[in-house]
């Protein structure tokens, strides 16, 4: 299968890419690793008149800590594999490192980029829920300069974000969770390498007495966009995470989920999966908080 014909230009820099985008209007698409865009183009679900290759722009793939801002800055062209292997991510944002390891397969992880995955906004994408649970932000650069959008308001609809036609995602900014914080990302697949039936990202901050001071909960493949389960976060906060607290929060998770029925299951089934994954993710996060080494990631 061949994509429909298009013009192809290699962008030399972010500024160059923006200039090309301005010239091409909405008929243009940015290409980075191409692991989402090329399959979509081959299926002719996307038929851009102009493909602008930003995959060779330098300086956009670092993963580094910015202590002054209290965030980890991840260049938009960092690949999933780079984030998974990054000592910064593993130490400061283990939730992201965990999610990086369960995306697609080795071939996709080695070339697909975080910026590309966010821009594609596949409802079953992994980075949306992870970014929302961590209260991450997306830096978008356009002709007028830079704006930073909360991950919670970045996604508009399936395959649609707030990114304007002439904007480029340049960086992800993810607040470093406090010491003693722990999380888990769980993704249920029917078989290896498949899209998620549903996925849940949980990040909990606990004080010395085990009381939850802050909670991040977000769902993937549970609606047209990633869903930040704010009511569940509120239900977890302000007390130790006792079984009845988890029960109450899990109910709010299933209320928040709004999955579409498809070959991966009915809407009710997927909603139940969200609740079950949430309970398991909270359990893993708590055990990790107390120092236990527990495996997260895939649930098959």
């Amino acid at each position, binding site marked *: 299968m061949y994509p429909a014909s*298009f013009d192809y230009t290699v962008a030399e820099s972010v500024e160059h890419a923006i200039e090309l985008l301005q010239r091409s209007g909405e008929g243009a698409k940015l*290409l980075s690793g191409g692991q989402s865009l090329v399959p979509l*183009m*081959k299926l002719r679900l996307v038929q851009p008149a102009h493909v602008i290759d930003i995959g060779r722009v330098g300086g956009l793939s670092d993963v580094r800590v910015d202590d002054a801002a209290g965030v980890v800055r991840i260049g938009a062209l960092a690949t999933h594999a780079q984030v998974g292997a990054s000592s910064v991510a593993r130490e400061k944002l283990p939730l992201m490192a965990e999610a990086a390891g369960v995306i697609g*397969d*080795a*071939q996709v992880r080695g*070339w697909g980029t975080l910026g590309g995955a966010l821009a594609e906004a596949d409802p079953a994408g992994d980075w949306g829920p992870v970014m929302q649970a961590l209260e991450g932000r997306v830096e978008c650069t356009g002709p007028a300069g830079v704006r930073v959008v909360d991950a919670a308001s970045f996604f508009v609809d399936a395959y649609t974000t707030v990114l304007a036609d002439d904007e480029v995602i340049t960086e992800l900014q993810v607040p470093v969770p406090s010491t003693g914080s722990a999380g888990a990302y769980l993704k249920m697949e029917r078989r290896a*390498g498949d899209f998620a039936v549903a996925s849940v990202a949980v990040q909990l901050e606990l004080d010395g007495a085990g009381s939850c001071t802050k909670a991040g909960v977000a769902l993937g493949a549970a609606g047209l966009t990633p869903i930040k389960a704010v009511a569940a976060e509120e239900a977890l906060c302000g007390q130790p995470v006792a079984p009845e607290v988890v029960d109450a929060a899990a109910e709010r998770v299933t209320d928040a989920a709004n999955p579409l029925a498809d070959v991966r299951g009915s809407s009710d089934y997927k909603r139940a999966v969200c609740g079950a994954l949430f309970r398991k993710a909270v359990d893993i996060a708590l055990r990790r908080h107390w120092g236990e080494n527990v495996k997260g990631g895939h649930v098959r």
Partner: protein
Amino acid sequence: MSGKAKIRITVNGAAHEGEAPPRMLLVDYIRDVVGLKGTRYGCDTSNCGSCTVVMDGKSAKSCTFLAVQADGREVTTIEGLADGSELNPLQAAFQETHALQCGFCTSGMVMSAHALLAHNPAPSAEEIREGIIGNLCRCTGYVPVTEAVQSAARRMKPEGGTP
């Protein structure tokens, strides 16, 4: 820029200059322009991995790349592994452990394993299974493939290394 783009790709160590329309896929470029038919065209939807090559040290599904994306890069295909008529240790291990029946997935499988061993010279069975998730085999199954990769890893282990 419409029409054709000039690209220069190093394939199995040899520079190859050619032209490709921007929408040409890397798998077609390798098979039809460079003329190396060992890279298989399988599902054509980025699922099966039989078109896997190694590009700049990383495994890549060549049906999911535009040939123009490979401009300036180094590509290794299955033809680049053997030294003349002497099989590379991975190829030899696939042969010895009967890790193929119909063989259609094999070139992609071997290239994925090749990239895996370059990053992780002594993978566990689980790491091998995870490492070849992107490569589907519909006849032999994954047990002999896992054995082959482990056997090759032992064989390729540097002298004096610990098992």
